[in-house]
């Protein structure tokens, strides 16, 4: 597995450089940006990793960046750092889904704990995203008739209902269902429903 990437956004070059060094030594991949604008110029929904952003910067602030990422539906976990405690800013950033809020000078243990938390969230998100991709690939292998059967199964319909709706025998429905489960790689109906729903999620 590739190392987790941390995007460090801070207007102070020394802060960027030192944090990058420390995180690299802890086994993370790091990319630095001198400002929120520079980061936003490059970021895309394909990216994976953790955002470590300074709250107060000339130009766009950390909170504004968070808002912009949400607006673009980019769900990278965000850790906000600032020079001195501002409870109102902290509250806002938590509400906007920040993983943690760290005060400068940054305590290493807190930083690593926050990073670990973010890594967990990001891995899950990546896994979820990966499952969705896998499911879409499997769904593509289903025949139109099988898609019809699947939609109705996921909607919670019984075999008899499906048979009457599609004007086929119950026996035929059961054959299609077995084939769908085999193609989607699940053994139970419940698993099939969960995979499809979470994949859509």
């Amino acid at each position, binding site marked *: 597995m590739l190392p987790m990437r941390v995007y460090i956004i801070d207007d102070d070059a*020394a802060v960027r450089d030192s944090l990058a060094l420390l995180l690299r030594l802890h086994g993370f991949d790091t990319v630095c940006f001198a400002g929120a604008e520079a980061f936003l110029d490059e970021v895309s929904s394909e990216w994976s990793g953790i955002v470590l952003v300074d709250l107060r910067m000339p130009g766009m602030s950390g909170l504004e960046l968070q808002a912009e990422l949400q607006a673009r539906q980019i769900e990278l976990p965000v850790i906000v750092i600032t*020079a001195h405690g501002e409870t109102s800013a902290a509250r806002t950033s938590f509400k906007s889904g920040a993983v943690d809020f760290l005060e400068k000078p940054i305590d290493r243990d807190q930083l690593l704990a926050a990073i670990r938390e973010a890594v967990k969230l990001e891995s899950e998100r990546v896994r979820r995203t990966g499952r969705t991709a896998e499911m879409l690939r499997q769904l593509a292998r289903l025949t139109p008739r099988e898609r019809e059967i699947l939609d109705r199964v996921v909607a919670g319909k019984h075999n008899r209902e499906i048979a009457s709706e599609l004007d086929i025998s119950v026996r035929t429905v059961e054959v299609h269902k077995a084939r769908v489960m085999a193609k989607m790689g699940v053994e139970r109906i419940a698993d099939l429903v969960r995979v499809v729903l979470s994949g859509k999620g």
Partner: protein
Amino acid sequence: MPSSTISEYLSRRGENRSRSPMSIGGAVVLAYVVVYVFLDWLSFIHPLGPYAITVWNPPPGLSLALLLGLGLRYAPALLVACALAEITVRHGHADFGEVVLYAAILAGGYTAIAVILKRSAFDPRFRSLRDLMLFVTVVSAGSIVIAAAYVFAHVATGALAWSEFADHTLYFWVGDVIGIATTTPFLLIHGARAARGIRPRITIEVVLQALSIAAVLGLISTLEPGHAANLFYLLFMPLVWISIRYGFEGATAGLLATQLGLIAAVQLAGYTTDWVLQFQLLMLALTVTGAFLGMSATQWRRARHALESSEAELNTIVATAPDAIVSLDDQCRVTRANRAAEALFGREAVALADTSLSELIVDLPSNLAGTRALRARARRSDASELPVEVSFGSTLVDGRPVYIGVIRDTTDRSRMEEKLRERDQHLDRTLRIAAAAEMASALAHELNQPLTAASAYVQALEMLLARNDPADPSLLDTMHKTAGEVERAGSIVRRLREFYRHDPGTTEQVQVEALVENALAPLRTRIERHGIEVAADIDADVPPLVVDRVQIEMVLHNVVRNAVDALVDAASERRQIVIAASRAQPGGVQIAVEDTGPGVAPAIAEQLFRSFVTSRKEGTGLGLAISRSIVERHGGRLWLDRSTGGARFVMTLPALQEGASRA
């Protein structure tokens, strides 16, 4: 004028109106005619020839008093009275036409005199010397005309010969003038007094005066006319006495009494007509003298009364004035002092008298000429001192300067000013502390950056060292970086310390271009992001500044940031900041930062430099108050020029002097 006096005055005016109605009082006319005829009969003494010209003729005096006192509308009554008198007393034998002619001349003549007097603004109350002069002149001149006309009428009717014209005219004139002079003023003055309800007061002095007149007249009546005429001057004494004591009012009464007594005396003595004429001429002189003397006395008395009341008023003002008022002679010694002065200096007025002002006021300038007001300290009798404000006024009395000093105790005011000053200082201190606190917060923020970096580097170093690879180049590199960050933190702390120093830190030569560049650097990103145009307009001949670079950089940064903030928030179409630098006198440089923003609201501009009045949401590194104090510590100034549309902050800073070493 107090209201009671005003109402009295108004009611008196009302009475006047009711007392002199426009209608002619029938009773008045009747009484006048009866008295006229009676007087004419009474005074019908020593008639000259059959024409009834007498040397004492009071009836015209009665007529004039009627016209002047009650109004010209009574003129027709004169005609009736004159005609009646002509018929009953004088020319019982004359035909009706002649009676009408003579009566018309007399009545018309006296009416003319009254008209002329009224037209000349004559006051029948004889208020001034002018009224008396006017009266004497018009009556004398008018009487001559009347006398001449009357006598000429007799000549024309053949009752008199031409040769007798001059003598008879003189005779007539003397009789009329003396008759009017003794009667009219008396009637006008005492009639008005009686109408006001004032009764004559008979005192012992008045009785003595009457007795002395009677004595002289008694003496005259017992003597030969020649001797008597020589003693006539004795009558001047009681009349001077009366005039001086009782003024014009007394004189008119005394003269009338003397005239009546004189007529009685000459009648008793049985003098010839020529002698009576002689005495009447003397009486005329006495009358004019007495009247003028009396008028002078009245005027003098009136003036003294006016002076006394105005002095009393002034004394009351001075006595009740809350400020100390002292009169000073030309040696600046106190001649008079009011109650407030006694209280202020803690001495009785008696003790203040003759005290030199320099003993009362500490540090009084030796030469007070031209001094109008000064602030000084008053020394009290117990040696304590009070802050006072002294104002001077001066005037010349008998050619010597007299000063008036008004001394105001300003203890309360001084105390209040002191309090205000203390509060100002307190406020200043508070603001300074607030500014310092904000400054500290800003610097703490800045300090956090190198500390964060240094701590991260150190942690990284720990891990690098744990690898136990001394050849790793990043080890040394990171150590350098750590040291650099610690250095940076140190410089921020130094800056903070410099900030609390009251004098500018170490000054150095700073080029304005470099200063502007450094102040702008941290703002570049924002300036570009918000499309703000920044222009530097630095004159070629601007010398380098001699300032604490760090502090002035902060000030300029702060001012420019204010401009940026104003432009970001504003909806201005054109977003421009102009930083202009030019030479300023003396030996300084002026830097102006002007923006195209909305400008500073007047309410905020007032206190812009006094407190952290700001429209920004986020705190700033530096308040304008502290910016100004930094500039002022450099000997310069920082102010807001509101003459432009946007905000224009201007500062002056010391620069390198021409000819000074640039080393």
